[in-house]
């Protein structure tokens, strides 16, 4: 049973009517009735079907591409290859998870000199039917010179490893290397004196962990429809976390002015960071421009697995020292993350987040960003943090057990709090980690008895959260209802939460506020939905837009009453005289002023365009019970509780959904999910039958505890909540399996064959 706990809201203390309630979701009916339009649902007159020819090789030079036979096939209307996209110079820009390089985007969307992973696009075509398109793909002749490949991160770091890019020199190393390698970057974060810290320790534990690449697993594959007109204008509909980002990338790749491209975000069937980049969209636009016809492109699940970003697989070494009384004296980490075919994996946030749940004086974390012959990694919910914190939280658990301290007490003794200096430098503001630990410790779950072969595990997690560029418009309709326009595709409930915050600020009912996600030509630039920023940033912007509306409402009331504007105050959604001296007037409601808007100066609206600052991190703690079948190695999750600081839960049901979804996604990452490559460098499990994600029958109801330590920099106290829940599950589950079996697993996933093998190797008992 989900529960909501309210702790003291430190600031701002604010009574709310709508924020914190659970009304019906504005998009709910369309989604449960099948009326909602997702990426593949748009159909336009004369629309063609686009398909992609992908490389069968993980690494090869492209010697030639002959499209003549395919072009001659009746029904084929356009074909594009590397020759149809201009090369772009190396230029790093912020986009989604990390900095991306346009030179690499061009090459990832369509291979140029080489293919760098199985599934790398080599050509794309548009035809009058899917059948003709598939037939035509077989007629494209590509001559490859196959090259040696490298899949594993440690293999890729060796001096004699096959080299993906002969112009890639390790950044972050002084002096700069003279030879290229697969190591794109070395990063380091440190505070204090690591050697002195370890010298103080009574106990030091050092372990090395391996994690596999895992996919975001969104249910809706990538899909888009592009329509170019003869005058050079284009429209694009796509399933994306950021249609303004898509617009920018596509305009750059196709040599268009940004104003020539209008992008509309469809409803989105999951993203988790994986829909912050472009794959099909530039191809569909190029095919549409060439054919003068609308082009729809939809990936198969196999294409999603073979060619879109998973997150990194990694090798992580962690060393932590502590005193006998449970004080951590030093912590060290070395992280090696796969970036996939192009540089730019989540190594920096992985390093920065690794030890964030702890108040430590001596920390050193070194990370390496390593290219391999795999699809380029994309953002995946708290990018990089689940990997490093899996390793750290496993060692923390082991230290607590060896010292003989309850794992929650050990964490409480070392927990990050307001004023803690992070390993990456700045001190934390008010945070709620300690509250989550205390709530878990006080829960009935933590004290419930366990049976044989069952184990209980705990782990904490952290994510930064961000703000960013955001536009929101509020248009007041003539009957006093309101339309709220936002630019963040709604993945996790941002429409409902934005409406709740707008209703709260305006003092009107929630059901009078209807939201839309505006297209790129209707509303100012808005950064993508990612970094747990949408509810945070939209709240800042919606509040500002609402204040503009209120100011105008008061001005209109003043005109009606023929008194000065500053003699009117706004209270409970009504304009009232500010005091006895202002005059004796009956309050005017929001709807009454809206009805008279045309006669008092015209339509009333508010608009905010800002770069939202003041995002605050969220900490969470997860508790899991499980049972290990020692005959099969299967792990069954019995019970699971998530406690996390939301700052302020605007729509608690959505917050609980984020907590529950993160836990379930983490259960899959912990127990089953992995990319399996053959010796030929080809992915062997590109489908949900062999890439095993959890389904409802695999998991119990996930209990939730919402802790609220308000973010003082947000008008409603909000912190982002979407990413932190994916961070603790892997370690919590590993710690529980250790308690059930006595075996410390250091490799993900802890799938039945691996668990069984370890149990058998460990002997009976």
């Amino acid at each position, binding site marked *: 049973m989900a529960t909501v706990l309210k702790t003291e809201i430190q600031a701002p203390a604010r009574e709310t009517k709508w924020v914190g309630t659970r009304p019906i979701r504005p998009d709910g009916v369309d989604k449960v009735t099948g009326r909602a339009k997702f990426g593949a649902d748009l159909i336009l007159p004369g629309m063609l079907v686009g398909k992609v020819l992908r490389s069968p090789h993980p690494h090869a030079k492209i010697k030639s591409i002959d499209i003549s036979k395919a072009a001659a096939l009746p029904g084929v209307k356009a074909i594009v290859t590397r020759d149809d996209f201009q090369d772009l110079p190396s230029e*790093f*820009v*912020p986009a*989604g*998870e*990390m*900095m991306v390089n346009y030179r690499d985007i061009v090459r990832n969307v369509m291979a140029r000199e080489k293919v760098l992973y199985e599934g790398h696009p080599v050509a794309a075509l548009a035809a009058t039917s899917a059948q003709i398109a598939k037939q035509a793909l077989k007629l494209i002749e590509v001559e490859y010179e196959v090259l040696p490949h490298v899949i594993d991160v440690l293999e890729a770091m060796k001096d004699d490893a096959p080299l993906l890019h002969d112009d890639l020199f390790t950044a*972050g190393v*002084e002096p700069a290397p003279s030879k290229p390698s697969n190591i794109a970057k*070395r*990063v*380091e*974060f*440190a505070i204090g004196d690591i050697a002195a810290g370890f010298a103080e320790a009574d106990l030091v534990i050092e372990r090395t962990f391996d994690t596999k690449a895992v996919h*975001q697993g969104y249910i809706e594959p990538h899909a888009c429809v592009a329509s170019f007109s003869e005058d050079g204008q284009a429209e694009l509909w796509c399933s994306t976390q950021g249609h303004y980002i898509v617009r920018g990338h596509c305009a750059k790749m196709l040599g268009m002015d940004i104003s020539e491209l209008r992008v509309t975000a469809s409803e989105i069937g999951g*993203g*988790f*960071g*994986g829909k*912050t980049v472009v794959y099909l969209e530039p191809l569909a636009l190029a095919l549409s421009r060439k054919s003068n016809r609308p082009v729809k492109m939809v990936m198969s699940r196999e294409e999603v697995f073979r060619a879109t970003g998973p997150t990194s697989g990694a090798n992580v070494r962690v060393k932590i020292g502590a005193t006998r009384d449970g004080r951590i004296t030093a912590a060290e980490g070395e992280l090696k993350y796969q970036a996939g075919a192009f540089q730019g994996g989540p190594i*920096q*946030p992985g390093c*920065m987040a690794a030890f964030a749940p702890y108040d430590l004086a001596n920390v050193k974390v070194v990370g390496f960003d390593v290219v391999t012959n795999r699809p380029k990694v*994309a*953002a*995946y*919910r*708290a*990018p990089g943090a689940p990997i490093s914190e899996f390793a750290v939280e496993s060692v923390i658990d082991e230290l607590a057990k060896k010292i003989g301290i309850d794992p929650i007490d050990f964490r409480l003794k070392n927990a990050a709090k307001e004023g803690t200096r992070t390993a*990456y*430098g*700045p*001190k*934390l*503001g008010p945070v709620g980690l300690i509250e989550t630990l205390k709530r878990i410790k006080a829960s009935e779950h933590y004290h419930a008895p366990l049976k044989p072969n069952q184990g209980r595990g705990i782990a904490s997690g952290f*994510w*930064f*959260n*961000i*703000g*960013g*560029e955001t536009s929101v418009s509020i248009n007041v309709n003539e009957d006093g209802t309101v339309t709220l326009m936002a630019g963040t595709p709604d993945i996790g409930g941002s429409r409902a939460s934005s409406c709740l915050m707008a209703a709260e600020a305006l003092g009107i009912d929630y059901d009078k506020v209807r939201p839309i996600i505006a297209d790129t030509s209707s509303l100012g630039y808005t950064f993508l939905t*990612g*970094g*747990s*920023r949408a509810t945070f940033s939209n709240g800042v912007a919606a509040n500002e837009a609402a204040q503009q509306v209120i100011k105008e409402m008061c001005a209109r009331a003043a005109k009606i009453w023929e008194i000065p504007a500053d003699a009117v105050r706004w209270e409970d959604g009504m304009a009232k005289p500010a005091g006895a001296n202002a005059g004796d007037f009956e309050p005017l409601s929001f709807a009454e002023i809206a009805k008279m808007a045309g006669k008092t100066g015209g339509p009333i609206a508010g608009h905010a365009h800002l*770069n939202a*600052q*003041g*995002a605050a991190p969220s900490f969470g703690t997860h508790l899991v019970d499980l049972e290990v079948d020692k005959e099969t190695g299967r792990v069954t999750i019995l019970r699971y509780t998530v406690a996390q600081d939301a700052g302020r839960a605007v729509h608690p049901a959505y917050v609980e959904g984020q907590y529950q979804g993160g836990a379930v996604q983490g259960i899959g990452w912990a127990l089953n999910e992995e990319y399996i490559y053959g010796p030929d460098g080809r992915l062997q499990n590109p489908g949900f039958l062999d890439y095993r994600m959890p389904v409802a029958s695999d998991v119990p109801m996930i209990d939730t505890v919402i802790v609220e330590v308000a973010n003082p*920099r947000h008008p409603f106290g909000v912190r*982002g909540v979407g*990413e932190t829940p994916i961070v603790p599950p892997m370690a919590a589950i590993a710690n529980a399996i250790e308690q059930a079996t006595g075996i410390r697993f250091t490799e993900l996933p802890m799938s039945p064959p691996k668990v069984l093998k370890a149990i058998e190797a460990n002997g009976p008992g």
Partner: protein
Amino acid sequence: MAHVVLTRNLAQFTDGESELELEAANIRQLLRELAARYPRLEPHLGDGLAVAIDGEIFQDAWLEPIPAGSEVHIIPRIAGG
């Protein structure tokens, strides 16, 4: 004056100097001052950075004031999924 702290990666371009006192009214001035003082650092002071002022992280906020006596950290840009 603000107390400015650089990550170890950035300190590679300042001959190892990772902490310094610097006069800057806002983030843009801070970045300019750093670039003027350490020319090798300039190419690394672009879009990939965030600036924390007394613990609060700012991104793309050139005009954010830096109060006197602040502790300022130059760190990698934060994003997410």
